[in-house]
């Protein structure tokens, strides 16, 4: 798998030589951003064994922080050097993740879904009604990616590399974190919480730190998202994007961090090109059919399909 990831990274890093700006910005960068957002969910699902509907909220908190502390057309907030804005955004999304974890720490299954959904909807309505910080319904626009030493991070090729780097970093974080003592404790809670307590580890801080870590990953996506879209509003944290992230995770597969990115690129391709095949209004039908097909035929997502194909090829070669 590691060799496969390195190969994938090499291919991805030479893509700007061939790909037009449209592909870099609208397909690839967008896929990586959605992939990182989905990764924050698949991390929780695969390692802690819970489904959270609050990941888009956490990404949104990072996005709003960037907007508030950058030049914007809403006339709200205070401009800070971009490094500070980024650090604050990651800090807030991580803290918010920890808070979600604190509230949802006793819940699994349908209950963790309901609690995190309630939190995300509460945040959605809060952003619509609060004007002093979130600028209500309209939110913030006119935000651009910063320039670093004369290099415009928002330029298509540069922004693509920023996304690629962030995506690789987020994946590396998840892989390394999952094999750390705390990461193993999180998986222990997933398998047998009672046993975790019986080896001297309190479960609540373990669960809270898993959510906090997922907040950090979601925050990374939230920052890129606001630079990519150049705006953030209540629509960025609504039910639509929340469900999109869930769909991406299911399509890609949750067993490996790579699944989130495979799901994201599939989703973005359908979102972008379904319009050429059928009418724009039918997007939900197409993505719904894809989701249904995946759930019925390959519950482990595209990642699962790829794995079984690989095993079949191996068998044929060995025979």
């Amino acid at each position, binding site marked *: 798998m590691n060799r496969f990831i390195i190969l994938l990274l090499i291919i991805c890093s030479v893509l700007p030589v061939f790909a037009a700006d449209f592909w870099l910005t609208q397909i690839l960068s967008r896929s990586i951003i959605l992939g990182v957002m989905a990764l924050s969910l698949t991390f929780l699902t695969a390692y802690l064994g819970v489904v959270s509907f609050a990941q888009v909220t956490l990404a949104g908190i990072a996005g709003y922080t960037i907007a508030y502390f950058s030049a914007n057309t809403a006339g709200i907030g205070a401009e800070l050097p971009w490094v500070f804005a980024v650090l604050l955004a990651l800090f807030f999304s991580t803290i918010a993740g920890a808070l979600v974890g604190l509230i949802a720490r006793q819940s699994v299954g349908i209950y963790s879904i309901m609690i995190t959904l309630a939190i995300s909807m509460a945040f959605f309505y809060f952003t619509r009604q609060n004007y002093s910080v979130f600028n209500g319904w309209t939110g913030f626009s006119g935000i651009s990616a910063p320039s670093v030493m004369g290099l415009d991070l928002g330029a298509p090729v540069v922004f693509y590399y920023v996304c690629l780097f962030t995506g690789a970093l987020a994946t590396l974080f998840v892989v390394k974190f999952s094999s750390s003592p*705390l990461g193993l404790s999180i998986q222990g809670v997933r398998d047998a919480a009672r046993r975790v307590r*019986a080896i001297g*580890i309190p479960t609540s801080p373990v669960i809270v730190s898993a959510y906090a870590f997922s907040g950090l990953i979601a925050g990374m996506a939230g920052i890129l998202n606001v630079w990519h879209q150049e705006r953030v509003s209540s629509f960025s944290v609504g039910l639509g994007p929340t469900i999109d992230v869930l769909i991406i995770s299911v399509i890609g597969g949750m067993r490996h961090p790579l699944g989130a990115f495979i799901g994201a690129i599939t989703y973005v391709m359908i979102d972008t090109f379904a319009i050429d095949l059928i009418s724009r209004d039918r997007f939900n039908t197409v993505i719904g059919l894809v989701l249904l097909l995946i759930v019925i035929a390959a519950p482990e997502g595209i990642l699962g399909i790829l794995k079984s194909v690989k095993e079949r090829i191996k068998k044929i070669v060995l025979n």
Partner: protein
Amino acid sequence: MSVTNTPTSNDGDALSLQGVTRRFGSFVAVENFNMSIKTGERRAILGSNGAGKTTLFNLVTGDLALSAGNIKIEGVESSKLPTYKRIKSGIRRTYQHALLFDGLTVRETLFLSSVGIHNRWQSFLPIKKNNKYQAEAEMLAKKAGLFSLLDALVGNLSHGQKRQLEIGIALSGDPKIILFDEPAAGLSPAERPVLTELLLSLPKTISVILIEHDMDIALETSEIVSVMHNGKHLLERTPEEIVHSDIVRDIYVGKKQ
């Protein structure tokens, strides 16, 4: 005939239970249970199904809260402590139905129990090779007879191997008291002597309490036997006395007509 109800404990005991009681609604699962375990003591607890043996273990480790009474582990008043804090006093347990991390490997499981017990679980940095907790994990695997399976997924282990892993986990850190909850359940006749040998090989610094339905193992590995019936501590005897006890036969086989 029954065990004296006046608690006889002193602070030198590894474990002391006084008036330990647990009610579920109107049902009393464990009633006014008194017991003192001396350091290095080997004790078996016998009793029919539903006598309250596992509930007693759950009360001692904090998996269940007490309704009344108090528990001292290594002289530390532990009645209100959460499970993970009682572990720090040196108490360990195995579960009747193996309660393990099916998604982790044997190595990861033993490593996790080692860092958990030494309170080093908080690190989010990847594990360095040749770390002392890694070394402990390998040592535990050796003791539990799972060294060749270090990198096997726990979910793929056989029933017997899972029981061995339970014991490996219980030996991590510096255990003072180990509670074994039916370690022989589901083991093949060939596996049983291995278990007996392992129980007998535990150093005398460790106190052992064993719940076991296999009389051979229970009587061979213990110096003193407690009999539990309907949640009560009915009697304490040596294994020789137990073999000839009418009460024990009555409990297990039913009264003579």
